[in-house]
């Protein structure tokens, strides 16, 4: 079985992004870029499934500009066998990303697609669900555990508001990862060298998916969130309790 992992190049999670003063976007020039952390977990999960002998190939795909090759190389240094860049200089929204990924699925015929539950830039949390819908296959979102029941069935434990829900899905399926699914491995230097020789196929988005359906949502303004008023520091529990009582929060 082949596993397809979809990843996104995003501003590194340690960077505190700033809105540009003119409200035209967030400042991303010169900031560190990384694989979306949820997608890194997706890569790790695919590799572990392959290491268990349940899959024979891990293919990683991204949609983005040429710089995204760096993140694909990192994914291959982690252990992915080959990579596909669907190249475009335009921002791609979830419905369009799902249509492009569906084209890749049609070519690659994976038995399982794993991707992060959301990208930490746009925080949309849509692409995996939309991909599963367009593909007409099951989805298991927010996964914290993936177990094979047999060759074409998996049990996925999902982190939901009420606790942990387990569902069973037939393969092929789309799994979206949550934080506690695994801890991604560190990349070693020899693996980085090895990854340079692994195949990386570049396809132009316009060639792969020439007519995408659906219109993009327009962003008309960016602003910084309202900061909270500066609070007070107290020295003792008595002072703290007095404030809480004054506000009517405790009796």
């Amino acid at each position, binding site marked *: 079985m082949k596993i397809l992992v979809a990843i996104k190049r995003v501003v590194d999670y340690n960077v505190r992004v700033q809105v540009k003063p003119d409200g035209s976007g967030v400042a991303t020039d010169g900031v560190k870029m990384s694989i979306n952390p949820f997608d890194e977990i997706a890569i790790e999960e695919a590799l572990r499934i392959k290491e268990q002998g349940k899959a024979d190939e891990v293919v990683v795909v991204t949609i983005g500009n040429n710089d995204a090759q760096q993140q694909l190389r990192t994914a291959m240094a982690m252990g992915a066998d080959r990579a596909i860049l669907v190249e475009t200089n335009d921002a791609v929204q979830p419905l369009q990303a799902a249509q492009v990924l569906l084209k890749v699925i049609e070519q690659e015929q994976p038995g399982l697609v794993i991707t992060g539950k959301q990208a930490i830039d746009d925080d*949309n949390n849509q692409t995996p669900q939309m991909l599963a819908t367009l593909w007409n296959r099951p989805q298991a979102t927010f996964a914290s555990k993936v177990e094979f029941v047999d060759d074409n069935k998996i049990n996925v434990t999902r982190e939901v508001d009420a606790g942990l829900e387990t569902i069973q899905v037939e393969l092929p399926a789309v799994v979206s990862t949550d934080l506690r699914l695994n801890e991604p491995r560190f990349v070693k230097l020899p693996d980085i060298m090895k990854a340079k020789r692994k195949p990386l196929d570049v396809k132009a988005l316009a060639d792969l998916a020439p007519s995408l359906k659906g219109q993009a949502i327009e962003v008309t303004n*960016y602003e910084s969130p309202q900061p909270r008023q500066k609070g007070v520091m107290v020295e003792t529990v008595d002072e703290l309790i007095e404030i809480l009582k004054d506000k009517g929060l405790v009796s």
Partner: protein
Amino acid sequence: MSKVLILAEHNGSTINQSTAKVLTAAKQLNPQLIDVVLFANNTDLSGQVAAMNGVNEVKYIQCNDNHDQLAASIAPTVADMAGDYTHIFGPSTTFGKDVMPRVAALLEVNQLSDVMEIIDANTFKRPIYAGNAIITVKTNTAQIVATVRTASFTAEKSTDGTATVTESTLTSAANHTSFVNISTGNSDRPDLQTASKVISGGRGVGSEENFKIVYDLADKIGAATGASRAAVDAGYVPNDMQVGQTGKIIAPDLYMCFGISGAIQHLTGIKDAGTIVAINKDADAPIFEVADVGLVGDLFKIIPEMMEKL
């Protein structure tokens, strides 16, 4: 004029408060009507929705088993109804996040995720970059599919609604997906997402056993309990207690946290709280930058003292 369809959320016996919050958001569109679609195996639930002020019609869809929770089973039915509406809203909870993008994909529109403010029928605000930026978005599609950030809207407690109820049976149940089981934290404390007071603990609490004093304080003041991602990752508490960007986004009147340093992802989950109280032994912890009241000290001394004095 707008016509809104809301996807109701429930736990089998009670309508989740997220539904009332989505209703509040829907009313801000000044719509011609608001209908609610409810997938369930319990007709009592339709009465609970019908009693909500402002609902025109409850479309109760009878489900077998637990198909009411499965996105692949219910999304096609919602999408089929959507043609009669301008806005299809769901809660930005794990339930809504699972289902609504499927509805959007079937309608061939992008979804508006985590709507926090409604400007007009086509213009909305939503957070990106874990709340570090807020964007104003505009869309002119015939159907607008959105999840509503529940912490941004209040739930009206109304029981004077007079909605009509129509019943039908689910016909779109998926056969490739099945529910196996659910395990919940099952505490008797108030629900974290709707509680007016929340007491939270972080890595500084140190162990599962040590969390007992956090629970004791919560019980003393009738609060729900939460935790940081670090405390969940360390196994001190179950995942349903996680507050933050990838856990629950909450807006209690009082949020009091112990031993939480305040990573940006955690702060995202609490920034709508009325009063934030932080207790941490590290005076430089970022949590103090957002706290309304801060106290530097050892939580193992402070909690017992609070227990005694409250």
